[in-house]
């Protein structure tokens, strides 16, 4: 088990190194000189040069990279080029917003995806099963932005059950927090629910037709116990989709953050790209990769627990 975790961690660190290094050099190549964007086009060459010196981009790129790297390994991602405040402060401010929405959306996806997937897997071809297929096509066709707006119109402005925009920290009010994150989480989760349900249903049917299940039935096991065995063998596929969903939702949060005016990491990424704010972009990259690595590690551990054969890979 230890070597299993060590291997996964090592590959995670390698991934982190490759992605951040790539991002550093690509960002610098793509953005080039950020000073016109940061100062406006009326800045004189002297003013631009002064800012370049202040933010340290007048040094060779490799020197800059080494400087960034040596600080980053200690958890210091430098200073935002726009606000001159620590990048960590920006991340600490934005991360809870996005995580609240994404985690809640993941929970919704898991609960409803599993229930619907099992229901359809148990009765393939039923009205409910066909309805799932139809809904999944419709949901994939609908733009997330539009879906968000419809949810706001109906449940926030029409019924007044939830907040239309903005985020309330749970430190201020837990009920307010739930009111503020429910609609964006639902908007984010709808597609994921259908995907997980579809995946679980297909996996369930596939396992259900295998010889060992027929044998279990022939031995006279109750339906409930057979389903439990089938589920245990179907779970890895659904879990993999769920983990991928979480990472996907993290990236896809920008749409709901726009519609619901949530100042999360999605909008921060967009703003930083527009401003050419490389330190913030790099901080966001590191954070996202760490999340991906951790989620994948957790997934591997759960899959290993569900299916011991995985640990030997």
């Amino acid at each position: 088990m230890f070597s299993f975790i060590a291997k996964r961690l090592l590959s995670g660190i390698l991934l982190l190194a490759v992605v951040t290094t790539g991002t550093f050099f690509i960002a610098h190549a793509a953005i080039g000189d950020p000073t016109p964007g940061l100062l406006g086009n009326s800045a004189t060459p002297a003013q631009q040069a002064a800012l370049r010196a202040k933010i340290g981009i007048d040094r060779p790129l490799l020197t800059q990279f080494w400087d960034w790297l040596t600080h980053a390994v200690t958890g210091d991602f430098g200073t935002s080029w726009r606000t001159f405040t620590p990048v960590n402060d920006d991340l600490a401010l934005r991360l809870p917003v996005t995580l609240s929405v994404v985690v809640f959306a993941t929970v919704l996806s898991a609960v409803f995806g599993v229930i619907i997937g099992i229901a359809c897997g148990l009765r393939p071809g039923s009205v409910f099963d066909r309805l799932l297929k139809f809904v999944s096509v419709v949901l994939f066709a609908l733009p997330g932005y539009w879906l968000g707006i419809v949810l706001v119109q109906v449940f926030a402005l029409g019924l007044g059950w939830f907040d239309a925009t903005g985020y309330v920290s749970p430190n201020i009010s837990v009920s307010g927090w739930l009111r503020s994150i429910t609609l964006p989480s639902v908007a984010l989760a709808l597609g994921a629910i259908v995907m997980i349900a579809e995946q679980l249903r297909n996996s369930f049917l596939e396992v259900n037709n295998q010889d060992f299940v027929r044998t279990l039935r022939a031995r006279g096991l109750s339906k409930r116990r057979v389903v439990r065995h089938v589920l245990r063998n179907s779970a890895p596929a659904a879990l993999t989709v769920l983990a991928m969903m979480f990472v996907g939702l993290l990236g896809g949060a920008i749409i709901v953050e726009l519609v619901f005016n949530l100042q999360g990491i999605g909008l921060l990424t967009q703003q930083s790209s527009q401003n050419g704010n490389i330190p913030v972009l790099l901080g966001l990259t590191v954070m996202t990769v760490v999340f991906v690595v951790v989620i994948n590690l957790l997934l591997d551990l759960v899959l290993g627990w569900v299916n011991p054969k995985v640990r030997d890979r």
Partner: protein
Amino acid sequence: MTRTRTTALVAVAVAAATALAACTSAGGGNTPGGSTAGGGGGAEITELKAGVFLDVTSWDPASADIGFDGPYLSAVYDPLVALDNEAKPIPALATKWEWSADRLTLSMDLRTGVTFDDGQKFDAAAAVENLKHLKAGVRSGQAYLNVADVSAKDDDTVELKLTKRDDSLLYFMGLGRSWMASPAAIKADALAKGPVGSGPYKFVADKSAPQSQYVFTKKDNHWDSATYPFKDVQLLPIMDQAASFNAMQSGQLNLQFANAANLPKAKEAGWNIASKPSSWVGVQFADRTGSQVKALGDVKVRQAIAYAFDSAGILQAVGNGAGTATNQLWPVDGQVYDKSMDGKYQTNMDKAKQLLAEAGYAGGFSVKMPMSPIFQAWQPAANQTFGDLGIKVEWVDMAMPDYQKNAPTYPMFLAVIAMSGNDMATLSDQVTTAQWYNPNPSVDKFPEVKSLVDEVEKAEPGAAQTELLKKLNTKLVDLAWWDVWYQADNMYFSAKGIKVQPVTGMMFPTLRFIQRG
């Protein structure tokens, strides 16, 4: 002298956002519990909650923008000079001022008894420190291009020495180029991290989140307290038009930078609606002398293009009707604008083709024009019109930041350019001074224009100068100096109980223009 050019770019973003934003669907105008959405429930509103569109650029007045920074900075800083509803300079921290006979020296008397939030005293030395800081400023410096020196005459008098007469200096100072900050904070280079001013509100940092929301509470003893009716102010940068409108409908905002597409819903909700010209939309001729494309140097060709475009149609189709179809760029609600001139280029494709033929371009000509996603709303109209005229346009696609950098290198380009509320500022911004959107003013190449400009710049400010500006405006329209299609309005929705007075030149008005009503 020029205003910060970012304002012009912001105008593009705003116009595009307004033009491209989807209409939100129906929604109730009432928040749960029966109080009127937008916060107006009949009771006096004590908290202003404004959706501003863009985040504050910087808390340092020297690095701040005019466009959308006004409300943020006006909460925490006092200006030397403010503007009234007609965009005329009025006293603030400078209680009065006087020009020398040659208009090259400006003396300002300063208010006494004002202190900054860090305890520093506002006096002539502080004003000089600030003015030097603003003159050296990356963005603010443009307002002080003609200022050679600033000095303190005594404890409450400062003097600005100019190298050249500048009739728009006070306007720019009032527009957002004379915010006074603590000299100690300036010296410590601390303003980028947070404001240190003497303004009417105290910034509540622990309730604020950068780029998300900014909270302010009113001071008890501000010298101009009566001008600021709201006890608390929340400013929220919300760029997404749908999110902003939803927030307004749900009562999370009671004032917003609005999208004209939502006008029927705003009327239905009973909100106050205010609008004012903010930017001109059309074709900018960067090559009026024909150095790149010979045809554009011929006035008949530029006039042909002006005749060809259906400005009113484009205003309706792309601009949601929020503006005024006109071929002029002095504001339609100003003194220089001449309504009778709007008939000069009534859409007439036959006349346009005839003019092209007279100029020797019956078969049209070829031209390259830049294009970026933000301008795509206007591209079909431009394509069709140029095509009908026989002008073959090769569009060169680029990202928006590159558009600003590269568009001026093309002979002509589609433009959305911020306007000024001051007639002399319009002259310098749009005609005489090189800007990113006007790289080759070329005034010297047109003797009639040059002599009129000289007359205007020497004239006594007031009626005489305005008359000369009208003549110049007529001349520029005759020469098809630009092909202006329309002047786009900025629009603001506010709950009953809040009234906004928009100001041309400010994308979002400063707090003194937001009152009860």
